[in-house]
């Protein structure tokens, strides 16, 4: 009770501070009072502190299982392990929004802390825009999703955290992803401020590039964590399903990736200003749009904690206000690019980066249309459709080929103007080798897809070119590692898709089944009692085609509260393949549904994305 009150009023204080900051900053700008009687930094810190306090109140409510609080009742149970009581705090709609807000206030505080050298007016404007966003979130939280609602009479026991959320990867996935999403809000506010101030110059670019990279790093890591979780927890053995909730996180990623390539051009040549601004606005809009789609209940998924149309409408209105505000500012304050630097030649680093942007926008458009078209169609003519992986594969895969080629030689081009004559023979030689390797791979596998061969060639080309580059010169290490990582990423997905095999059957204890290249035997099943679930552990022994015998022990968990069954796959990981076995109950008979998969080069997908992140981190260092 006390903690709930403290948490609630702490949030109200935060909102008041936010409104105060908006008016104070406007006043400062209007009357040019740059003496700053009160320290902005300390108010921003106070605001961060109010949200932090409120967040800790909520965590304590969860830890002490105080069921007088509505969301604790809905998402916790006294028998849940302590770790999942704590992570349950953001495993629900209200708590996760509080986390959003926490990161928002933290970032604006850090932004002010680290931008001492920037002009005052620019800083004040950034604070205004950021506080508009923050106050929007405060209102959203307090009006539609108050995390501190009471329940009376106080229930004796809670409903428990959804068991599939009881997982370490999922405990850190939301905070990391939010750091990426919220980072984009800083980029948004600061770009608008810089636009109004006509402050888009080299200093600003250097300063904002750090924020872009931070957001990009966290967004990438957040998406990867979600993907790893889906791989082992959902039991399908895939890492990306083109599910709308996955797509909404991918869209800002494309935008952000395009943005930080553009910002390099802006930094070096002071062109493409407007384009960079459009990307900055789009990135944040897409992050918000993701929140809207996921939270409004339009998409049904694990992320939709509660379907409440009121919330959807609130976010939608808020989103529209932000978009209109930014578009108006964009058109009113847009300045002509100075024509001195306007010379762009066919073959230069600038054009190759523009090409990157084109591809990013194309991928973005495909994902966006594939995600929202079914929603529109349902609203318009009540047809229910779904757009699955084939749609995305068909539209994205062919365009990866030129994309990969550009990715290989783009970074090697000079600024302003370059020609391709140098190293011509070497490049053709590498390309031929790649073609040969790819042809052999496809030929041995017995598949004959022309497009697959070319795709393999393109990715091998990128692989070798970046590898040679990496070994030759040591400068610009971040970029080289990131491009190299991307080639490994594409290659591992390709190998994964052509070399993976699977087998599924319904088996009873003692059954032995031969499948295409091995034998699978269901040895026994044992039951264990854990703190908040019963566990059934199956023992399987598998003989593969080389007569190696190994055992896998997949598990079925039957949670007490709420009563949900989950499957925990048993995965044996090696550098070449993952052996993935998952079992499931069908009904109360002797049969178990068994699915055995060999996923080739699975670990390399995670390694390459991690390497991509390392590339991002190394780019931070560079001036």
């Amino acid at each position, binding site marked *: 009770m006390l903690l709930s009150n403290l948490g609630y009023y702490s949030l109200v204080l935060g909102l008041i501070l936010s409104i105060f900051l908006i008016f104070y900053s406007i006043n400062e700008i209007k009357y040019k009072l740059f003496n700053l009687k009160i320290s902005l930094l300390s108010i921003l810190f106070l605001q961060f502190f109010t949200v932090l306090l409120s967040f800790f109140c909520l965590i304590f409510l969860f830890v002490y299982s105080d069921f007088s609080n509505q969301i604790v009742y809905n998402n916790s149970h006294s028998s849940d392990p302590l770790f999942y009581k704590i992570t349950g705090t953001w495993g629900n709609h209200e708590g996760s929004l509080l986390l959003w807000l926490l990161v928002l206030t933290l970032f604006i505080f850090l932004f002010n802390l680290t931008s001492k050298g920037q002009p005052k007016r620019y800083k004040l404007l950034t604070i205004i825009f950021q506080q508009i966003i923050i106050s929007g979130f405060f209102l959203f939280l307090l009006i539609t999703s108050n995390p501190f609602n009471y329940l009376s009479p106080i229930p004796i026991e809670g409903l428990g955290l959804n068991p599939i959320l009881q997982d370490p990867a999922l405990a850190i996935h939301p905070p990391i992803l939010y750091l990426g999403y919220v980072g984009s809000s800083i980029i948004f506010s600061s770009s608008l401020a810089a636009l109004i101030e006509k402050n888009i110059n080299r200093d600003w670019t250097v300063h904002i590039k750090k924020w872009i990279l931070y957001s990009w790093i966290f967004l990438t890591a957040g998406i990867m964590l979600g993907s790893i979780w889906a791989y082992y927890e959902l039991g399908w053995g895939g890492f990306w399903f083109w599910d709308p909730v996955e797509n909404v996180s991918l869209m800002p990623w494309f935008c952000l990736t395009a943005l930080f390539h553009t910002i390099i051009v802006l930094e070096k040549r002071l062109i493409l200003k407007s384009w960079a601004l459009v990307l900055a606005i789009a990135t944040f809009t897409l992050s918000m749009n993701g929140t809207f789609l996921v939270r409004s209940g339009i998409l049904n998924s694990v992320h*939709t904690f509660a379907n409440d149309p009121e919330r959807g409408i609130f976010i939608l209105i808020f989103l529209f206000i932000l978009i209109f505000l930014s578009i108006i500012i964009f058109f009113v304050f847009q300045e002509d690019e100075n024509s001195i630097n306007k010379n762009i030649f066919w073959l230069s680093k600038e054009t190759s980066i523009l090409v990157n942007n084109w591809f990013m926008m194309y991928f973005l458009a495909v994902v966006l249309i594939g995600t929202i078209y079914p929603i529109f169609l349902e609203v318009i003519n009540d047809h229910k*459709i779904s757009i699955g992986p084939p*749609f995305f594969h068909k539209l994205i895969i062919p365009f990866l080929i030129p994309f990969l080629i550009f990715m290989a030689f783009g970074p090697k081009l000079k600024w302003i103007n370059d020609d391709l004559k140098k190293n011509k023979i070497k490049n053709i030689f590498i390309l031929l080798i790649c073609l040969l390797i790819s042809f052999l791979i496809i030929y041995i596998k017995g598949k004959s897809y022309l497009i697959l061969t070319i795709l393999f060639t393109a990715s091998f080309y990128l692989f070798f070119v970046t590898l040679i580059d990496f070994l030759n010169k040591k400068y610009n290490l971040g970029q080289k590692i990131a491009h190299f990582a991307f080639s490994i990423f594409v290659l591992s997905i390709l190998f994964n898709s052509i070399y993976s095999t699977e087998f599924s059957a*319904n088996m009873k204890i003692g059954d032995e089944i031969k499948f295409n290249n091995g034998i699978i035997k269901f040895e026994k099943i044992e039951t264990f009692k854990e703190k908040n679930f019963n566990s059934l552990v199956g023992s399987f022994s598998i003989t593969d085609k080389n007569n190696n015998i190994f055992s896998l022990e997949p598990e079925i968990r039957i949670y007490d509260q709420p009563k949900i069954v989950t499957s925990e796959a048993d995965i044996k990981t090696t550098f070449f393949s993952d052996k993935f076995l998952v079992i499931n109950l*069908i009904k109360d008979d002797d049969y178990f549904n068994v699915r055995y998969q060999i996923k080739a080069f699975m670990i390399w997908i995670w390694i390459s994305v991690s390497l991509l992140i390392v590339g991002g981190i190394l780019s931070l260092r560079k001036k």
Partner: protein
Amino acid sequence: MYGKRVKLRFFFISTLILTFILIIYLLLEAFEKEVVYFLSPTDIKNMSEIDSKKIRVGGMVKNGSISTETDKINFIITDFKNEIIVTYSGAVPNLFMEEKGVVAEGYLKDKNFFIAKKILAKHDENYMPPEVKEAIEDY
């Protein structure tokens, strides 16, 4: 005849237009082929003819209808007005059970018989396909 800049701009704009045409063409074609319609057993009953396109069928798994064999599972999807027999071999999601919502993706053999290639997981124990919800409310 024209300056370099005009040529450049002309080239740029024409590439832009061509790219857009290409993208729209590709999108429309992909929509035509890769979109999967979602139907209820009643929708299937009302269909005039059966085509070979991939569809999704949603509804509830009828009580007592699941029967398991080594290489396949048979069950009945119902929307409480009509029902359809489904046969499936492969992995089932955790929440696949009788009297729970289910979405099956696959091909129709005839109006009463559906061959599923995929059974979709819904993460929420209380999830019900929207059609089923409507059907139950009408019921």
